[in-house]
């Protein structure tokens, strides 16, 4: 191998830079996010049920909302029939955020933890939030 | 073969670094545009396409112009072009990359670029534009690289490349026709709504592209050991001459239709561009200059003793390039939006960030031409020594 010494030193520097983030936050994992369901609208619900069941919503709400978007906007059909046959009005701001009126303590908790920035919030906003 | 671009004189590297500096400035301006939005440009509700799309339109033409050296060499076996076809193809690569970059910096949501592929729309001309531009880029890379590689090895060009070369000929026509169709099918813009748009685009493309090619080749002859050949340059110059005559003739036709019919919608834009309208006329000096410079260029190219003089040849090609640039890169796109659908006038003033980004994309084109031509010239110089 040519320039063995330089290659080894380069590899060592690369390893240090690459592993630095892991070494820096060693032992201090961010706590698991706890989205809060503590809103007046949810408290007033007789049955604490979302459009679909919790597990489904947690795992699939991204694709689910995309389907809602296409159905409402592109097909013009604003009534969604959930798995139990109940009709739900499709609207992020007026259905989802009516119960989950605490975007900072609900939506943002998991999104910030996972480091995702869904562009939904470029247009949609929490109607009960203080700032746009 | 790219390694040939890594060996050069200090002037060569100075030029590369100069281009990289301009590109760097453009990148900073583009980051600013990504942060704040297209509002940093001079575009407005009335002039919704500006410098970026105008430059895109012009450089699609320059890219298509390469076909003017491909057709004589490959369809008619004009051997004088054998050594320079690759330079036309490499110029086309640089021009198409510039076009794609101009589109990217112009769209409002660049992160959604892939939507054009995810939601193909056969009734939209932009869909076909995306296909033909990327296809042309690919064709020129395949043809240019493989023919140059074969030259370097001293073997004839491999047979499988030939179909790509033949396809690139109608494809070159198609890229500029599709770009013309972007404009020529819009019912509300009378300046663009003309059947002659595609022929005009092609005529100006076949003038501008080869003119740029001649200028660069003359420069190459001065600074390197590669000589494209006087007869080859003269033939290209004749092509430029007749294409420019056709282009000026088409412009004349536009004037005739507008002013003989006396239809206001047809006349108003030409009045704004060449004489001023309602007190607005910030483009008038440029447009008038374009006609004069274009005619001057044609004259220089028509007279054989002048055309054979390299200095005057360069001046003539520069004149044709500048004239077509003003006509297509400044007058055409802005003119289409003036007057607006309400027959009022909003003028367009590009801003400094906008011009910086556009200049940086020009510098990217210059960089690609420099690097690719360095490779091609190195191969030609090796061939000459062998």
């Amino acid at each position, binding site marked *: 191998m040519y320039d063995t010494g330089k290659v080894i030193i380069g590899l060592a520097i690369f390893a240090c830079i690459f592993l630095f983030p892991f070494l820096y936050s060693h032992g201090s994992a961010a706590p698991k996010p706890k989205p809060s369901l503590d809103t007046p609208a949810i408290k007033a619900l007789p049955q604490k049920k979302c459009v679909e069941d919790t597990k489904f919503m947690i795992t699939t709400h991204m694709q689910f909302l995309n389907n809602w978007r296409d*159905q409402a906007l592109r097909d*013009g059909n604003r009534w969604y029939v959930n798995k139990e046959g109940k009709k739900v009005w499709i609207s992020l701001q007026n259905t989802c955020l009516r119960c989950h009126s605490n975007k900072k303590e609900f939506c943002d908790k998991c999104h910030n933890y996972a480091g995702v920035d869904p562009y939904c919030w470029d247009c949609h906003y929490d109607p009960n939030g203080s700032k746009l | 073969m790219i390694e040939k671009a890594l060996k050069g004189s200090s002037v060569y590297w100075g030029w590369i670094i100069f281009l990289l500096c301009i590109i760097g400035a453009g990148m900073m301006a583009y980051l600013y545009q990504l942060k704040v939005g297209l509002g940093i440009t001079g575009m407005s509700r009335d002039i919704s396409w500006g410098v970026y799309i105008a430059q895109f339109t012009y450089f699609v033409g320059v890219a298509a112009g390469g076909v003017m050296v491909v057709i004589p060499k490959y369809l008619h076996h004009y051997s004088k072009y054998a050594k320079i076809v690759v330079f036309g193809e490499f110029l086309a690569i640089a021009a198409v990359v510039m076009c794609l970059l101009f589109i990217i910096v112009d769209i*409002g949501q660049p992160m*959604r670029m892939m939507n054009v592929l995810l939601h193909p729309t056969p009734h*939209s001309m932009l869909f076909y534009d995306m296909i033909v531009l990327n296809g042309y880029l690919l064709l020129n890379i395949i043809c240019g690289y493989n023919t140059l590689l074969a030259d370097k090895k001293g073997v004839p060009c491999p047979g499988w490349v030939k179909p790509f070369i033949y396809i690139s000929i109608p494809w070159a026509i198609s890229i500029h026709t599709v770009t013309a169709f972007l404009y020529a099918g819009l019912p509300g813009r009378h300046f663009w709504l003309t059947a002659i748009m595609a022929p005009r685009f092609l005529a100006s493309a076949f003038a501008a592209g080869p003119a740029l090619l001649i200028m660069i080749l003359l420069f190459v002859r001065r600074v390197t050991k590669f000589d494209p050949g006087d007869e080859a340059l003269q033939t290209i110059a004749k092509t430029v001459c007749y294409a420019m005559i056709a282009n000026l003739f088409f412009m004349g036709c536009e004037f005739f239709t507008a002013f003989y019919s006396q239809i206001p919608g047809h006349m108003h834009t030409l009045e704004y561009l060449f004489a001023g309208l309602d007190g607005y006329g910030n483009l008038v000096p440029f447009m008038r200059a374009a006609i004069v410079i274009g005619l001057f260029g044609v004259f220089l190219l028509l007279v054989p003793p002048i055309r054979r003089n390299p200095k005057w040849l360069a001046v003539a090609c520069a004149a044709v390039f500048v004239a077509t640039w003003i006509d297509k890169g400044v007058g055409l796109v802005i003119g289409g939006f003036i007057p607006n*659908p309400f027959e009022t006038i909003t003028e367009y003033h590009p801003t400094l960030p906008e011009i910086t980004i556009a200049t940086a994309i020009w510098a990217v084109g210059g960089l690609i031409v420099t690097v690719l031509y360095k490779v091609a010239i190195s191969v030609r110089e090796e061939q000459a020594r062998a």
Partner: protein
Amino acid sequence: MNMDRRKFLKAAGLTTLVGLGGKGVFELLKPGTVEAEMAHEGHEEGGQEKGSGPKVRWAMLIDIMALNQEKIEKIVHTCHHLHNVPNWGDPKNEIKWIWEDEYEHVFPDSYNEYNHILAGLPFLLMCNHCDNPPCVRVCPVQATFKRPDGIVAQDYHRCIGCRFCMAACPYGSRSFNWLDPRVSLRKEIAQGRKLNKRFPTRMRGVVEKCNFCVERLAEGKDPGCVEAAPDVMFYGNLADPNSNVRKILKERVSLRRKLELGTKPSVFYLI
């Protein structure tokens, strides 16, 4: 199977091309098939119906003779409030869904300078929701599309901001968000503007225009402009020969903008 690297690369490349081209071919042969197959069955509210021929074509009638400055301001203010349209205050960045202009600019190609009556009347301009819309023809991603009920809709999620639709629209109905609309909205909120919390804003980099209040129609309400001035703005189903709008059009002279372009606009001016 005996395969060398070259054969494998050729096969992989071909497969990729076929895969990428598949949707495109579908689209070419039967436009909208792939989307339709993914769509939900059954349409209820909103007045749309599947089947043969359009049963609904929404149209807007504007009674120019009953229009005055006060009503114009109320209509424009209502529409822009309901849809959180920012008020930039400068013509370069302005966004407008409905606005006022005069005869000479509304009908520039058929302007009769001796028609002093029309010259003295105010006109309201908005998206014409054409039956043959050039904007829909040119959009490369179908972000603007024509609904079965005739309304030309804009999908802000898909729009790439190329502004081809703005160049294609012969009526100048479309506005582009050159800047983030919330920048202006926040300033206006600080000066006392109230948002319509039931409707989103838009993001920068997308085109917007009048949407015929599809969100209100879906809830069974009238469009905002109609509600603001029900004696001036009338809307109804143009495809139904017995609808209110057809009755009015039988009794009143009506104009439409730039009919010679073949766009078949759905906004009528009653004079």
